[in-house]
């Protein structure tokens, strides 16, 4: 074992968003020497992962996306269950108002692994929605996590496994001493990856004691679809807009209005909830909105996770590991 460890390469990872963290963990698990570099001081600062929904929903995410998202996302279910004990496997629900029923039909047609549920089953799944919806789609295999709990837990896990984490350091890949560098900087890597673009997402967190959900709920609507993900302490995360701009400014009035209007359609009592946060982040995306891994010399770029950081990082990390192993094999 020790001989084998000596022969392994050292890897520097830049960026401690979800892609960087999971890649670092995956490499550490294979016995590599791992050093994670992060330019911000505090956890969650400067990364769009902090504002994510945290839905591990490979089937639901197929809507408005590509089969590839589903195919690459399924492995995340097992990954999260094995690596993070806060993973909630309670499935997800897709609903619409009665008059937007065609949206549910369309959603069901382009996705798999769902059951059509009637009012009775809906009431059993989410008692607080009692009587408000007559039918919907249930995806029993899907899961969710809270990114703001999962990110620190994964970082702790990495450190416990012997990975080194340096915060508050801005590094250049070329200057790092490690044998291989994995660049997981997201949009900051745009200077090296010209095809990368920013897609702005805005979210709101609300708090209420009156309404509790057990799983993420997507409320379809032809214009303003919205999702709600339950968090600890009576908090619900409401998301998310998708705007073709890399503007980092705070949430706009219009987006806040749209999200809040939509969430009240799920349940009017949510109109009485307190708004505890409204934020905006910018996701890194390639033109096809599908993540990609490319290598320039000893630098591997893993980027373009778009809306799917928590869903697709396990796939991304596995691919990076395989690429490094292949190179190591070639050297040996």
């Amino acid at each position, binding site marked *: 074992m020790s001989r084998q460890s000596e022969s392994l390469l050292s890897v520097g990872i830049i960026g401690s968003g979800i892609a960087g963290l999971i890649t670092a963990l995956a490499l550490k698990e294979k016995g590599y020497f791992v050093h994670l570099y992060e330019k911000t001081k505090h956890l969650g600062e400067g990364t769009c992962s902090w504002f994510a929904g945290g839905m591990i929903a490979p089937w639901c995410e197929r809507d408005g*996306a590509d089969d590839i998202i589903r195919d690459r996302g399924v492995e995340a279910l097992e990954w999260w269950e094995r690596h993070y004990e806060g993973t909630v496997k309670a499935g997800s629900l897709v609903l619409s108002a009665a008059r937007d029923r065609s949206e549910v039909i369309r959603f069901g047609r382009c996705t798999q692994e769902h059951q059509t549920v009637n009012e009775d089953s809906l009431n059993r799944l989410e008692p607080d929605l009692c009587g408000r919806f007559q039918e919907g789609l249930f995806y029993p295999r899907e899961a969710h996590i809270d990114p703001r709990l999962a990110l620190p837990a994964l970082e702790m896990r990495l450190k416990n496994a012997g990975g080194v984490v340096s915060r508050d350091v801005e590094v250049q890949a070329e200057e790092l001493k490690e044998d291989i560098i994995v660049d997981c900087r997201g949009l900051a890597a745009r200077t090296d990856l010209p095809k990368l*673009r920013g897609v702005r997402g805005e979210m709101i967190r609300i708090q209420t004691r009156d309404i509790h959900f057990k799983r993420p709920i997507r409320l379809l609507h032809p214009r303003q679809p919205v999702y709600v993900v339950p968090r600890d302490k009576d908090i619900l995360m409401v998301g998310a807009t998708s*705007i073709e701009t890399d*503007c980092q*400014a705070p949430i706009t009035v219009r987006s806040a209005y749209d999200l809040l209007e939509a969430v009240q359609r799920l349940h009017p009592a949510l109109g009485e909830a307190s708004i505890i946060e409204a934020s905006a982040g910018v996701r890194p995306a390639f*033109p096809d909105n599908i993540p990609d891994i490319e290598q320039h010399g000893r630098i591997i770029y893993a980027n373009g996770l778009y809306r799917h950081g928590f869903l697709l990082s396990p796939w991304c990390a596995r691919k990076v590991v395989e690429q490094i192993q292949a190179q190591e094999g070639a050297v040996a």
Partner: protein
Amino acid sequence: MSLKLYGCDISSRLLLGTARYPSPAMLKEAIQAAKVEIVTVSLRRESLGLQNEQRAGQSFWSLIQQSGARVLPNTAGCHSVREAVKTAHMAREIMGTNWIKLEVIADDMALNPDVFGLVEAARILNEDGFKVFPYTTTDLGVGERLMQAGCHLLMPWAAPIGSGQGLSDRNALKAYRRHFETVPLIIDAGIGRPSQATEAMELGYDALLLNSAVAKSGNPVLMAQAFRQSVRAGRDAYLAGPIEPYEGAMPSSPMIGRAYLS
């Protein structure tokens, strides 16, 4: 024969909107697969960027430009003459074209045109040197007013925007075609399926503009190709001149000279 819109020869009779695609790459692929020459782009948050950050929305905009299609900016979501005129001017500056698809929306839920505002905005924009593509109803009087306001083509709806209902008032669309015999007419909004597109083209409409029917389908690239074929089929059928329906059967084989085998 190609279609002439404000002096430009256009060979593709299918126009596409650019909203709600799964990704910019898929939008580009759909445009190219269906050989679309004109795409409409809304000048809103996407292209302007927020808080005057000039660069903010440029990636999406440059991806649309790379598709090679001619851009027809629109004033989607504008509710007043002033708003629509201002949007048109901004679009001309940013997108470098004097073409404008003019929408003045009356009601946010129904997305029906405010025809009074439409005629007024069309007059102002034509005087300002724009080439106006007005999104209108099948009302003949409104169509006349738009022509008087300087429009050289008309874009009546088939059904409400995004509804996919198809030709909801076929007789009105037929009458519209008959009335504006020599005016280029483009069906704008309401088409959901290729068969409906064929039907519109069989009525003699010159072209068709779509968005949701392609963007929100299960496979936008394949659906764009299906629409290309259906528009072509309808156009060819119109030019060829379909037969009229007849009550009862009509034998395809000539009856005279038939052999009697008794």
